[in-house]
């Protein structure tokens, strides 16, 4: 069986359009996440938002009248990824879609319910109903892209992006598709922002400041964020046959759960399992993209897991320091940063990190950009319900070369 390769990336984040814009933003260590859209800036718990103007620009005038904001954003991001992969003919029976999201459609659900209760069933707009389901963005994307292959939605909080990657990998290995769009989207609303740190509405889990500060001494909790991230996954042999350059190879993905709410245990088990299933070893890892989001206890638990496996040797970047907690999109944004870090040979810092918290195990969290050698990278994520997932990404076997798209940032 051919290894699986990531051949395209699309990201829309608070930094703007594109994966390169995201990593450049992290490299520049922008710290203040002023809300750009979604909720008014003066709102309590205002999120680190993305701009609707960015979404409109990425859509280049494509009609999206029947789509809600999540689906529109996802479509725009998918277009970026497909262009990056050079997959102009995506669609048909052999191409599929998997979307990770927590809150897609929740505002539509609330609006429909309120309308029905306040104004009566006759005032419910039938066109709004289908937007209320968790699968709406994936289904809409399937319709728009005419993708008749597998179509799935994964709803696993911050972990969901890697679960979506695992679903896509399983589908490709099983021969049920030739290319999979692996997507994550999470947008903020008055409803979902209070839930940005799943199942942890306690004040201690919410940041007192405007930005999260993963692993930092002064971290005080997570901050709601918005992002969409999409990766094109296909068999490496198929990619090469159509002349595409793999941007990274997927080593393995694994997940674990701790019913006793021991997050460090779940994180460690998922990391170990992913490494065991990949050609890489803990000793060979050159970097780790952590899922830390500034939460006090959870960041410390993840640091314990990373330290027990990697000690203080491997440089660590927590992407959520820059983009905040983006739910279902979080892990795929981390994957995008990991791929670009591999290509550039440079790992961005953890935005907002200045000095390690006393309760944080001595892992090597970066406060500034750090060159990394060519080698495997680990991606670690976890959610507030003590589920964790990890992935191992490997550099593609051939030397990195520029692709046909402006999206590629190969400086290695």
């Amino acid at each position, binding site marked *: 069986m051919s290894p699986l390769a990531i051949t395209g990336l699309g990201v829309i984040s608070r930094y703007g359009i594109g994966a390169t814009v995201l990593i450049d933003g992290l490299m520049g260590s922008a710290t203040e996440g002023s809300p750009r859209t979604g909720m008014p800036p003066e709102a309590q718990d205002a999120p680190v938002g993305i701009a609707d103007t960015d979404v409109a620009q990425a859509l280049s005038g494509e009609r999206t009248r029947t789509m809600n904001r999540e689906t529109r954003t996802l479509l725009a991001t998918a277009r970026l990824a497909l262009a990056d992969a050079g997959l102009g003919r995506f669609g048909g029976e052999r191409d599929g879609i998997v979307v990770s999201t927590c809150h897609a459609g929740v505002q539509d659900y609330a609006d429909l319910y309120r309308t029905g209760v306040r104004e009566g069933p006759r005032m*419910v707009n039938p066109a709004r109903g289908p937007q209320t389901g*968790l*699968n709406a963005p994936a289904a809409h994307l399937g319709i728009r892209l005419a993708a008749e292959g597998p179509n799935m939605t994964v709803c696993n909080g911050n972990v969901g992006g890697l679960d979506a990657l695992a679903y896509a990998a399983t589908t490709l290995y099983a021969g049920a598709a030739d290319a999979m769009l692996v997507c994550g989207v999470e947008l903020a609303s008055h409803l979902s922002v209070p839930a940005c740190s799943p199942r942890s509405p306690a004040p201690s889990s919410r940041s007192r400041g405007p930005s999260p500060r993963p692993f930092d001494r002064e971290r005080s909790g997570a901050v709601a964020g918005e992002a969409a991230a999409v990766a094109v996954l296909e068999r490496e042999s198929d990619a090469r046959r159509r002349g595409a350059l793999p941007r990274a190879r997927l080593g393995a993905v694994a997940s674990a*759960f701790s019913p006793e709410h021991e997050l460090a245990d779940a994180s460690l088990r998922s990391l170990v399992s992913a490494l065991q299933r990949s050609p890489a070893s803990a000793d060979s890892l050159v970097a780790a993209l952590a899922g830390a989001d500034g939460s006090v206890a959870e960041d410390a638990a993840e640091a314990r897991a990373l330290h027990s496996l990697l000690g203080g040797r491997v440089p660590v970047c927590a992407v959520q320091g820059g983009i905040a907690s983006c739910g279902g999109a979080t892990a795929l944004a981390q994957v995008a940063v990991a791929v670009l870090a591999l290509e550039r040979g440079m790992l961005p810092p953890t935005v907002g990190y200045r000095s390690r918290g006393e309760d944080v195990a001595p892992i090597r969290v970066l406060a500034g950009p750090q060159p990394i050698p060519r080698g495997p990278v680990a991606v670690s994520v976890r959610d507030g319900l003590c589920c964790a997932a990890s992935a191992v990404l490997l550099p593609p076997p051939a030397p990195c070369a520029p692709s046909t798209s402006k999206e590629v940032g190969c400086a290695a």
Partner: protein
Amino acid sequence: MSAAPAIVVTGLGVVTALGIDLESFWSALLAGAVGTRELTRFDTAPLSCHRGGEVRDLPGGGPACTGRSLAPRMAVRAAKEAVEDASLTTEDIHAERCGVVFGSVMATRPSLEAWIDRKRGTGEANCAEGGETDWTSPSLLARAPAVALGLRGPNCMLSSACASGNSAIAYGSELLRAGQADAIVAGGADEISYAMLLMFESFRALAPDCVKPFDRDRDGLMLADGAAALVLEREPDARSRGARIYGRILGYANSCDAHHMTAPHPQGRGAVRSMLAALKHAGAQPCDVDCINAHGTGTPSNDAVEAYAIRTVFGASAEHVPVSSLKGAIGHAQGAASAIEAVSCLLALRDGLVPATANYATPDPTCDLDVVAGEPRKAPLRVILNNAFGFGGNIECVAFGAA
């Protein structure tokens, strides 16, 4: 497609309006009982439909269910029953090698209604008891059973709309084939919500009196609460621990109509592809299928398109393949529906009995299938195809085989 080892089902659990345990559900279904009735949890006065497959009097369920909304509580109950039914203990399988995959349309989202009502100061109207913030975590549907059972392996909540239960079974099987776990509790759960009643009311898709799948006079669906769970294992593992085997998961396939958010493709394009691909995955031909558990919602469009798709796949032999739909008896349990129907398929394989389609009385020329009606039909069953179709054109069909 995926190679051996075979995946088998060793435990079943179910929660429906017909019964909240396996044998009461199955005996009621075979007796021709209908579980849809007047809804009590909602003020349905503004609606044209006042009935549904409501699950009432669900027992507590232990600490994992305390303060939880209905869907995760049903998921926990079904999962517990399935694991007990499988006689699966930590002596057999390490908890780290046992995972949970559940599917749902809305998962915990209905609890948002109680949260909104509370914010509006209208008290408890239109809401199930407890769990007002569960909506923030749809993954609770898979996490809660894992907490209740102490399962530490892969944990995943999927949605492919009303095909979600079948999708969970398919993905759970893939996790086992990939060696990521030694046992998977796979299933689905969903609860009736007022928002979904409103949505289907806006489509004029709710049946006022009863659900009549494939009947000439069918006039819509009824929503239902429900959950079901299946314990999946690799066959050699199951046999080595001496487990009872209900049946095999022979094949499955997910596809998308890519046509419309609510309407099925008029020629059932995705359904045809999914049925054919599931049979191919199973190494079977249409002529090998002894029975079809239809999606059969009771809406005019679904049933006509499904019948067309079945005729396309099975050709002239379509009229000789027994077809049954459970939705006349229990309503449409949304993301749980196909998981519940999977349980029915496996019990049908065990007993050699195809349950009847409740409320079917008058054949419809546009659904010229061999619809099993009146009484269960005795038949030697080796292969059953379980169809599941959802909004957005999400489709997943699963082929089950005898042990």
